[in-house]
């Protein structure tokens, strides 16, 4: 765990060195709320590039009435929306949308507040030396993920490989921080407009699971970027996504079910040290009627019993 060290002078002028662990106590940043039921990592997530919060715990306390009121207003407002949206139709959209929609833009980066839905991390969590940052691109119309990849493994005696960075969307939350899911069953293709740097990225989609053994199940596919100054439209059918768990591709493959999707992410781990960048304009879904493939990989038994 990262430690921060501050020195300060006591009343008697003797400098003291104190080691503090910044993430041990709940933070009181404006985005966290008294009613939050999410874990400590999600509450106290600090985007790389932001200065660490080195305040003392008693300085982080914000114990006032308005904080409670704003939490109540936010969550009860979301609850009211959930009831009222049912009048309009399933998931708040009229039925005609569900019948006719061919495309749906899911993430569109317009403005700095759109970056709040994304979590960026790198191998610094395990002691590596890569760095990844996220910012809005030119004219606040794109998302710009950049940083430096370093595949030197951390010297902890057990890690052999390192050098990865990732950007992942947060799971949508309903009222009272209940987890919601995306329903993409009307679509069969992922459509993104990106401008990369020629590196091979991976797109990861995580769906809702039931057992704790499936916690790290992720459906992935490759995203080869060109690197030129021109934008690149990438369409990946969902039938191409393969299942991996904790990074290991599974033998027993199955298709991704689109009715409960939690998050999407982009990962870079191509063992090439140096700077990287990926600019994303939008991430959308579309329904390609010409694509009738259900799953691209074998489903039949590989060793049938006789």
């Amino acid at each position: 765990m990262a430690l921060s060290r501050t020195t300060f002078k006591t009343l008697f002028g003797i400098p003291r060195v104190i080691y503090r662990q910044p993430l041990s106590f709940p933070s009181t940043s404006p985005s966290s709320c008294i009613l939050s039921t999410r874990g400590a990592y999600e509450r106290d997530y600090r985007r790389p590039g932001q200065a660490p919060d080195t305040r003392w715990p008693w300085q982080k306390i914000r114990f006032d009435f308005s904080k409670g009121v704003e939490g109540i207003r936010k969550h009860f407002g979301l609850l009211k929306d959930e009831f009222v949206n049912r009048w309009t139709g399933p998931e708040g959209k009229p039925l005609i949308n569900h019948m006719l929609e061919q495309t749906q833009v899911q993430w569109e980066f317009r403005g700095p507040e759109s970056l709040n839905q994304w979590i960026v991390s790198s191998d610094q969590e395990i002691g590596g030396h890569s760095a990844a940052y996220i910012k809005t691109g030119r004219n606040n119309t794109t998302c710009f993920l950049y940083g430096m990849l370093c595949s030197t493994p951390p010297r902890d005696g057990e890690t052999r490989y390192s050098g990865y960075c990732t950007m992942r969307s947060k799971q949508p939350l309903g009222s009272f921080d209940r987890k919601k899911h995306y329903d993409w069953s009307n679509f069969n293709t992922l459509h993104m407009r990106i401008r990369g740097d020629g590196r091979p990225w991976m797109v990861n989609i995580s769906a809702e699971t039931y057992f704790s053994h499936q916690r790290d199940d992720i459906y992935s596919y490759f995203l080869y970027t060109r690197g030129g100054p021109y934008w690149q439209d990438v369409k990946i059918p969902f039938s191409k996504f393969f299942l991996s768990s904790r990074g290991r591709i599974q033998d027993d493959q199955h298709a991704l079910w689109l009715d409960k999707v939690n998050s999407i992410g982009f990962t870079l781990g191509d063992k090439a040290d140096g700077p990287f960048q990926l600019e994303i304009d939008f991430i959308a879904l579309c329904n390609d009627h010409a694509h009738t493939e259900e799953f691209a990989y074998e489903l039949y038994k590989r060793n049938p019993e006789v």
Partner: protein
Amino acid sequence: MNPYVLTILLSSLGLGTTMTFASSHWLLAWMGLEINTLAIIPLMTQQHHPRAVEAATKYFLTQATAAAMILFAAATNAWMMGEWDINNLSHPMASSMMMAALALKIGLAPMHFWLPEVLQGLDLPTGLILSTWQKLAPLALIIQVAHTINPTMLTLLGLLSALVGGWGGLNQTQIRKILGYSSIAHMGWMIIISQYAPHLTLLTLTMYLFMTSAAFLSLKMTSTTNIMTMTTMWSKAPMLASTMALTLLSLGGLPPLTGFMPKWLILQEMAKQQLPLTATIMAMAALLSLYFYLRLCYAMTLTISPNTTNATMPWRTYTTQSTITLALFTTTALGLLPMTPAIMTLLT
């Protein structure tokens, strides 16, 4: 699946239900229910998908809980009253617990929460077995013990199921979940009349089996699982789209289709039993269900999506699936209303 294994599982399903039908002792009835639960679990997990395994797990947990409660209620009755006979469930606590357990078995509200999720995780043939065959044995037990159950409990279960089945299905886009809520609503209708006229429960069950089988088999023929796929069904199988629409309206209880028969007879019986308010609430709840069936019909047959191919009709090749059962169930789901007097004679 290996044909021998499939034969064993399907015959176990048949054996379990038959044992429950033929039993007069609670232990044998419970055994039949357990055999049914265990036999359908491998059918549910045929596809190695985590959602199928999740559905099987949820199904197993709820059904095992219900079976344990059934055994506990029967044992309590045997201890208190000295009777293991199914028809002599006289202890009030035992009869209430038994009814709660059987309600959990068939997915009556308020013990219905597992049903839509489990149906959503299954493929259509297994969903059909779950919605039809697995309801037979518990309902046989309910019909036998209905006269001993607290009438208020039965009425509340029935009303709540009809309302929940109607409201819950309103904002769904997945058809399997819609059919799950439809099942809850129909079970409500069956339960509420079981204390006054058990033959009508049997009638409703039979008609429900025909209609649901027709619906599931039509969906299986066109591999349709959500509303959007339903909107393009007309160009691929126009006759099936029209009969599917009529099947859905039959599920909604519209005359002159079969589904009107049980609802009409139940409302008539409730009027005879001096229950106008209950009858009115049930009829209003049926309107909620009718709304989502009509919505499906609207999406399927009353609209033409602009997003199909340029040609008017795609080239329709012959299907390799067997169509005889679909034809049979569709005919019974649509055309049995004029035979109401004959059916009533058979059942009373």
